[in-house]
């Protein structure tokens, strides 16, 4: 292994760069463009696919503020209604524990 100093390495890069740029001189066949265009035509127009997608995206984004308002209203409603679990609600109506057991038996739980 021999060391290459900064200057020597720069020369190598420069020489490789010439080789790299020379690659663009390669040619492609005459029929290439018609072949690609044929492929594109076989895919059909793209407006319909993208049109629907864009419409859907626009619709979804327009619904965003409405969604936030609904979430806020729901939060306020829950806060004002003072949320109880089913058990807590039943307990407030039935005063002693024996009644609770009887109720459980009749409800099948």
């Amino acid at each position, binding site marked *: 292994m021999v060391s290459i100093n900064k200057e020597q390495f720069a020369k190598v890069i*420069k020489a490789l760069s010439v080789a790299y740029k020379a*690659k663009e001189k390669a040619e492609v066949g005459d029929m290439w*463009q018609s072949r690609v265009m044929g*492929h594109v035509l076989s895919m059909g127009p793209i407006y319909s696919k993208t049109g629907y997608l864009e419409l859907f995206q626009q619709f979804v984004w327009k619904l965003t503020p409405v969604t936030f308002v609904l979430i806020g209203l729901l939060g306020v409603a829950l806060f004002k209604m003072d949320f109880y679990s089913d058990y807590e609600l039943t307990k407030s109506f039935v005063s002693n524990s024996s009644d609770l057991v009887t109720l459980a038996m009749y409800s099948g739980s």
Partner: protein
Amino acid sequence: MKDKPIMYSDAEIVLQVLEGNVNSFESLMSRYKDLVLRIVKKHVPYSEVEELAQETFIRVYQSLSGFKSKGDFKQWLSSIAVRTCYDYWRKAYRNKEVTMSSLSERHQKWLEEVVSDQMEAPFQENDVQKEATELLDWAMGKLTPEDRMVMELIYLEGMSGKEASDLLGWSVANIKVRAFRSRAKLKKLLKERQ
């Protein structure tokens, strides 16, 4: 008096294609075929050029609705071409299809001549030696697809970090770090050859 043919701007042609006139896409192809081929030829092996250039135009067609009419179409198209080449190398590396050609005494000699200033005209574009091209392919084959793309754009094409960043869609900081690393890797590879 003969009427002059109407010259539509890129954005106008894009709009025509999006309105369903697929044939208008050919105008874009004729306008930018050489640019795409020039980009692709530099990044991928010769045998893959036609296919990759075709894939570039198909990608362009498919993502045409994503092109912003106020943007630079040429720049947008170039970035798709570069990313198509990058995807080619990623796929090739994943499938282990990258051929690791070995270097011979000829390459060794070429490298020594360049380093020691013995070469008379190593930088004449008209006279690119076969050894240089083979050595370049060998060295690029040893780099990862990411390092390879950065190495080619920054050091071999002479682009700025910002230009490479726009084409690859990576941050400038990422490009700079990769450029530094790929340069160090290449230097190490060449040292080990000597």
